[in-house]
Every structure is written in C-alpha cells, then in structure tokens.
C-alpha cells in the first residue's frame, strides 16, 4: 500500500468526500447492529416483565465483581480508542499504535475475565443444560424454568456481545499493524475513526447489559 500519498479511490472527487462517506457508512452499519441487539433486548424485556421475581433473584447470582470490572475495562478501552483517533489526527504515529494496541489488549482482557466468569457460572450451577440444580431455586421460592429463561438470555446477550468484541479486537489489531507501518497520516486516518465508532458501539451495548443482567434485583 502506498504510504506517501493518501489513497483516493477512483469514484470519489476528494479525500474529504471519501472520509465522510466511510464514516457515514459505519454509522449506517451501527444502525443494523443496534436493531440486532434490539431483538435480544425485546426478549429480555418481555420475560422480565412476566417473571420479575425469577429475573431479580437469578440476576443476583451473577458475579457483579466480574461484571463491574469488565465494565471498567471496556470504558478504559474506549478512552484509549478515542485517544488513538486523536493521535491519528495529530500525526503521532507511535502514540496511535500504543493506543490501538492498548485498546485491543483491554478487549482481550474483557474476554479473559468473561471466560473466568463463565467458568464460575458453570461451577455455580448457572448453566441450563450443563450445570443446573432445580432444587436450589425451589428452595428460594421461584420457578427454576423461569430462572433458566433468564440465564439463556444472559448467555445469548453476552455471547453475541463477545462475538462482536472478538471481531472488534481483530479490526483494531489490523489497524494497529497498519498504524505501526506508518500507513496513516493526519490527512488519511479515517479507518481509525471508523474502527473507533464500531468499538465504542460495542462498549455502549455492554453499558446497558450491566444493569439489565447484573442488577435486575437488589443486591443487599
């Protein structure tokens, strides 16, 4: 790839048009992502309204420490991503690379913590089909099937979120590689901005998952 002059595609008149088009394209894509998660939010909402007790109790059994720490991890990664874009705009190649690498590493950290969390869920009999104890919930006075419903939704939402995060890490990693090669300049850095938009979106989804999944019930 030519690193000397900004690559203007043949069907654009100016690099500015190309930049704006790319950014607009990512915003449009985020529309589809929001509606995709929207379907899951609908399932959550419907069953929470129908089974408030089960959702509250099951939610309290999730590990809030992991959930909370992961939230901080992702928010920090959003900071490093935003700073990365700024350093791209100001032509600071090394800082840009550091920012992108940190963002990706924080994403990986999230996944590792999530992995430990899932393992913990398994140990705690919170995996319908694999590790679940009906009696435990009967003793608490709630219906085990409805608890399973909460957990299924929990795994679907966090699972699909994690899938998006993995894709995001791959994208940021790729951007970091090209950034390190000096590929981006203050005139041509929109791929960083576009990647950043996607990354922030994945963060925003998690910001909503935290209260919905972990704090549905009062944790005394």
């Amino acid at each position, binding site marked *: 790839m030519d690193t000397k002059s900004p690559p203007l595609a043949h069907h654009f008149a100016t690099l*500015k048009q190309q930049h704006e088009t790319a950014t607009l394209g990512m915003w449009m894509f985020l529309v589809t992502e929001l509606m995709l998660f929207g379907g899951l939010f609908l399932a959550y909402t419907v069953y929470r309204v129908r089974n408030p007790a089960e959702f509250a109790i099951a939610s309290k059994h999730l590990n809030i420490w992991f959930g909370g720490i992961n939230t901080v991890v992702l928010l920090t990664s959003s900071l490093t991503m935003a700073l990365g874009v*700024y350093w791209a705009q100001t032509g600071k190649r090394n800082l840009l690379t550091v920012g992108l690498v940190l963002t990706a590493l924080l994403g990986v950290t999230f996944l590792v913590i999530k992995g430990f969390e899932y393992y913990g869920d398994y140990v705690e009999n919170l995996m319908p089909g694999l590790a679940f104890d009906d009696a435990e919930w009967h003793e608490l006075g709630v219906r085990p099937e409805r608890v399973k419903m909460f957990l299924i939704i929990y795994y679907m939402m966090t699972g699909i979120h994690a899938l998006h995060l993995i894709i995001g890490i791959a994208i940021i990693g790729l951007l970091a590689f090209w950034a390190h090669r000096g590929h981006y300049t203050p005139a041509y850095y929109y791929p960083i901005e576009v990647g950043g938009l996607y990354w*922030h979106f994945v963060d925003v989804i998690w*910001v909503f998952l*935290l209260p*919905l999944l972990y704090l549905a019930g009062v944790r005394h």
Partner: protein
Amino acid sequence: MAEHQGQVRTYGVIFVVLIALTGLTVWLGSIDLGEWHTPVGLAVAATKAVLIVLFFMHMLHGPRLTWAIAGTTLLFLAILLLLTLTDYLSRDWPTGRVRGEMETSSAQFFL
C-alpha cells in the same frame, strides 16, 4: 475533521465521569428503590451511553445527519419494544369473551 479534534482533557474528564457513573450504578443496585430500581439503572446507563456517543464517537460536533440516523434508529427500537410489550401487558384485559375451562387452566402456564 481537523476542526473538531476532541481534546485529551475532554476525553479524560468524560472517562472519569463514566467510571464514576459505573460505581453509581453498582451502588444503586444495592439499594432498594422499589419500582424505581429499573428506571434509575437504565437512566444511568443511558447517561453513560449518551456521553460515549456524543464525545468518544464525536457526535456532538458531527453532522446533523448522524443525529438523524441515531434518532431514527432509537425511534424504531422503541416501536419494537413498546408495541410488542403492549401485547403482553394488555393480553389479559377483559374483552367480554367467555373463557372456557381448558383456556383458564392453561392460562397460568404462560404467567
């Protein structure tokens, strides 16, 4: 794109606010707010989301088109959620229809 380069300090401030709001979310989750529990939690989450979108995603100084896109999407998401929820909330409202024995006994299955 050169006009509105977010400044490092703004990002830092927003980040601190986001972390603080996260702490607030978790703390509020331990207080019994009764029926306000969920709305409050969602309100804090929404605030965090708005901050991320406006500042980290540069929507605050971005083109109006971005605002229109985000607004439209939220509108249709709201339609999906609210209209469907209306079904579940109003399904058992009286319609004057006489319920058969089979219907009544199995109805509790869905509640």
